[in-house]
């Protein structure tokens, strides 16, 4: 009983402040929020839909193999409120994406920020402008 309660207390207090645990769409242990990876490549697909916009990009690995990564973003309403739209990123556009990768090593992730070819940072969670809940 004591162990169960201790576990419950730990679970209740363990959620990181930057990503609300109690949101529309719980993620649990989907992403490794302590790890960031940098993806350089070209946009291959943008699914501008709720509950979360999904952006896919082709990334060439060190051995030349092409891997398609997908990363989730905020919802359509939240991104629109920040001034982004479904043509902000276009298929074929070169971008750099900083992401928290999947916990199990799959090529999926959640956005930290996107850097455009001219260095402009958009859709940034770092800047506190993108609550991906």
């Amino acid at each position, binding site marked *: 009983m004591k162990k169960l309660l201790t576990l419950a207390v730990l679970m209740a207090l363990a959620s990181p402040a930057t990503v609300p645990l109690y949101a529309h*769409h719980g993620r649990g242990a989907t992403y490794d929020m302590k790890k960031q990876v940098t993806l350089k490549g070209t946009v291959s697909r943008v699914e501008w839909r*709720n509950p979360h916009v999904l952006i896919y990009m082709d990334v060439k690995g060190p051995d030349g193999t092409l891997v398609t990564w997908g990363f989730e973003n905020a919802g359509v309403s939240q991104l629109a409120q920040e001034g982004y739209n479904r043509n902000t990123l276009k298929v074929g556009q070169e971008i750099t994406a900083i992401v928290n990768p999947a916990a199990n090593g799959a090529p999926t992730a959640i956005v930290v920020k996107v850097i455009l070819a001219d260095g402009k940072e958009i859709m940034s969670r770092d800047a506190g402008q993108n609550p991906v*809940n």
Partner: protein
Amino acid sequence: MRRFTLIALVLSLGALAHAQDDKSKFKARYDANAGDKKFDPHDLSGIWTLTKNDHSLGTPAPPLTPAGEAARAGRVVDTGAANGNAPWYTCNPMGFPRLMNDDEPMEFITLPNRVLQVFQWEHRIRMLWMDGRALPSGENLENLGPAWYGHSVAKWNGNTLVVNTVGLDERAWLDNAGNPKSFHARIEETWRRVDSNTLELQLTLHDPEYYTAPYVGSKKIYKRMPADATTYFGWYGLFAGITEGICAPMNEVDVYNKFRDAGRAQPSGR
């Protein structure tokens, strides 16, 4: 059963501890409204957003009755490791009052005989009748049956809009802690426009079937959002209004949940 109550209470407190004032991105914009001193306290019109996200009534729930414990059984709450089995993960309605305590904006529309609430998430309408009809009770309530958002009547008491809602569908969770509410529960909510920029809301759940005492919620604050903080699909500042936050299973269940679960370290509770 006592063990589940204690754990649910601890998780509820955890949720409260993590209630976040994460609307800071709009703060400068809604603070900009503060100079607008003129307002009609009986006009709630506008688009409003909660200043804190906590997805609950904002206070710890009173102990459940044995029937309440039974109603709560099988509900798995979210943890740091995995999702629970809340109905909204599969696009079922959040129901009242859970939707009211959600993250996204809500619009009040005032009509002669009723007030409408339009919620961005679910793109949902709630009708608060003010045409003098009685709150359904007895055989009338039994005949009407349950509704995800219940049956609501409202009236002004001075400058406070008092809304009572009955006939709620028991399958909808009261909050993220999985607390229940019975079909025979009544929820009283009070709304007060304290200035041009601010609404105060307070909810009390009266449900002797499932709770050993009335569940009195905390006072919640909504702030009025200006047009340029709401925008429809990227027409930034040009086509402002509540957006279409529909939870479509062909987006949420067939695509998003699968995308998310592909990277999950542990399987989901669903």
